[in-house]
């Protein structure tokens, strides 16, 4: 195990970030926010351009003659039914973020936008921007990374590594070894830091749920550490055994809870208001999504500029951070589908579900603010973690719904960490499909340490900028992977 330089380097790099964060959390948070500020100001245009080009490229590939190429050998057939394929896709890509941001995000944007336009327009725009962040562009980033991994591993028999396409297309020489090694290293770093953030978000969410449930307000970190310890225990155990089937079951349970919660909110909330918001949201999204992908808010004031950086750009980089992890997963479950079916399934269906989800939870938020005038905007300002629970407290059976949300958040985090430790061990072990338990456990510990660092920072903004910093180099690597794919496809069709 210690002969593998990528494993050693990646453990050293992520371990160093974790150690830095443990010893000096404010220092790490300040550093990442400063560097990310500089990167976003100078290269924000490139991030938006990349996300838009990936989306257009995805749609172009689906409609082109390459669309009929299979992700696998010509006689391979899909392993999963279309319905279970779609539900697994969605659970992998979004997870705990949906529960966390369902109501909080549209309301946060609303608070900013209402300073510029009248309230109804601000609400419309806030919902659109949220859908934009979680919609086609996000899924195009996942789809393109997953597509490259799936194409090269199933059709060209390459190992499941980010560097595999580079070696396959450009051959093995000192340059490709260097770039390939760097790509693997950056993918590992982005996944590890991104997952650390996910653990922190899950802990914040579970903690707010427990506080809402028992009507307590904790000032110290005792409850936080208790929840963190519980999550660690819950994911360390499955890492020692092969429980892939059990994990799929837990992830589907979390997804089912989230789905049921959504239906429950539609039925018990202001149903006409929610349904109208969903329909309006779809229309708005279809009409504006492509031009908005190129929107960089160049001529607006600093307030809007900061908002754009800390939400839109951060999200795009966030999806990039997750893309090697989600990409590997999406690739694995999509073997045997054509490129066309793959892209249409991965890009369109989850986007439609996201618009539905934010339509429900966003509009309930707007209803509480604009129609019945609760103090929800104040909750978003002072304690964004508890927004979802504030909404649920205003609906019937809130003990039940809050418990269900806490359980779903817990399950989403545990299943994500177990799969991430697996993918990290695979990437750092040269594409080994059955990585040794010891490596998985080491990654489990590092993920826990990174999660703890993010919890110490005690701020979702710090979590976001640390993730963005870890993922920034990956923007360039995805582009390189895309070039490899296009070259390989061109060659295949000529042949």
């Amino acid at each position, binding site marked *: 195990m210690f002969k593998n330089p990528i494993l050693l380097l990646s453990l050293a790099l992520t371990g160093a970030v974790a150690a830095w964060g443990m010893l000096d959390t404010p220092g790490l948070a300040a550093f990442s926010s400063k560097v990310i500020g500089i990167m976003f100001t100078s290269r924000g245009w*490139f991030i938006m351009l990349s996300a838009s080009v990936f989306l257009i490229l995805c749609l172009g590939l689906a409609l082109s003659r390459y669309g009929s190429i299979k992700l696998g050998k010509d006689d391979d057939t899909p392993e999963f039914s279309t319905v279970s394929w779609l539900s697994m896709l969605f659970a992998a890509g979004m997870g705990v973020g949906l529960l966390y941001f369902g109501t909080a995000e549209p309301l946060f944007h609303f608070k900013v936008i209402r300073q510029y336009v009248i309230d109804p327009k601000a609400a419309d725009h806030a919902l659109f921007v949220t859908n934009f962040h979680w919609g086609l562009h996000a899924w195009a980033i996942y789809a393109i990374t997953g597509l490259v991994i799936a194409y090269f591993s199933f059709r060209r028999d390459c190992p499941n590594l980010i560097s595999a396409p580079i070696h396959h297309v450009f051959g093995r020489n000192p340059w490709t070894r260097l770039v390939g090694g760097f790509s693997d290293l950056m993918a590992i770093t982005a996944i590890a830091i991104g997952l650390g953030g996910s653990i922190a978000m899950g802990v914040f969410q579970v903690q707010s749920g427990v506080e809402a449930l028992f009507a307590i307000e904790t000032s110290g970190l005792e409850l936080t550490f208790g929840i963190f310890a519980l999550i660690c225990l819950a994911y360390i155990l499955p890492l020692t055994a092969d429980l892939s089937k059990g994990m799929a079951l837990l992830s589907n349970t979390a997804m089912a809870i989230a789905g049921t919660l959504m239906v429950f909110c539609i039925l018990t909330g202001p149903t006409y208001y929610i349904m109208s918001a969903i329909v309006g949201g779809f229309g708005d999204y279809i009409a504006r999504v492509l031009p908005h992908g190129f929107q960089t808010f160049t001529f607006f004031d600093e307030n809007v500029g*900061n908002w754009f950086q800390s939400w839109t750009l951060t999200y795009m980089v966030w999806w990039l951070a997750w893309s090697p992890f989600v990409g590997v997963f999406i690739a694995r479950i999509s073997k045997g589908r054509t490129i066309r079916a793959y892209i249409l399934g991965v890009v369109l269906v989850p986007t439609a579900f996201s618009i539905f989800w934010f339509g429900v939870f966003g509009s309930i938020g707007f209803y509480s603010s604009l129609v019945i005038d609760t103090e929800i905007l104040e909750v978003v300002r002072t304690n964004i973690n508890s927004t979802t629970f504030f909404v649920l407290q205003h609906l019937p059976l809130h003990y039940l719904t809050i418990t269900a949300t806490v359980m779903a958040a817990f399950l989403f985090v545990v299943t994500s960490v177990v799969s991430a430790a697996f993918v990290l061990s695979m990437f750092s072990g040269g594409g080994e499909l059955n990585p040794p338990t010891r490596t998985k456990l080491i990654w489990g510990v590092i993920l826990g340490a990174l999660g703890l660092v993010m919890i110490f920072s005690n701020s979702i903004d710090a979590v976001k900028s640390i993730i963005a910093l870890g993922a920034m180099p990956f923007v360039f690597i995805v582009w390189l992977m895309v070039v490899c794919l296009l070259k390989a496809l061109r060659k295949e069709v000529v042949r």
Partner: protein
Amino acid sequence: MTFQLPGLLDTLLNLSVFVFIGLLFWLYMRKGPEE
């Protein structure tokens, strides 16, 4: 998160992006070892 950038740093960061885009075009157009 916005910073007043020193002009040189901004230029260098953007220049690296331009070089990268150029490199991508070159990699796409050039013939690989098997082509």
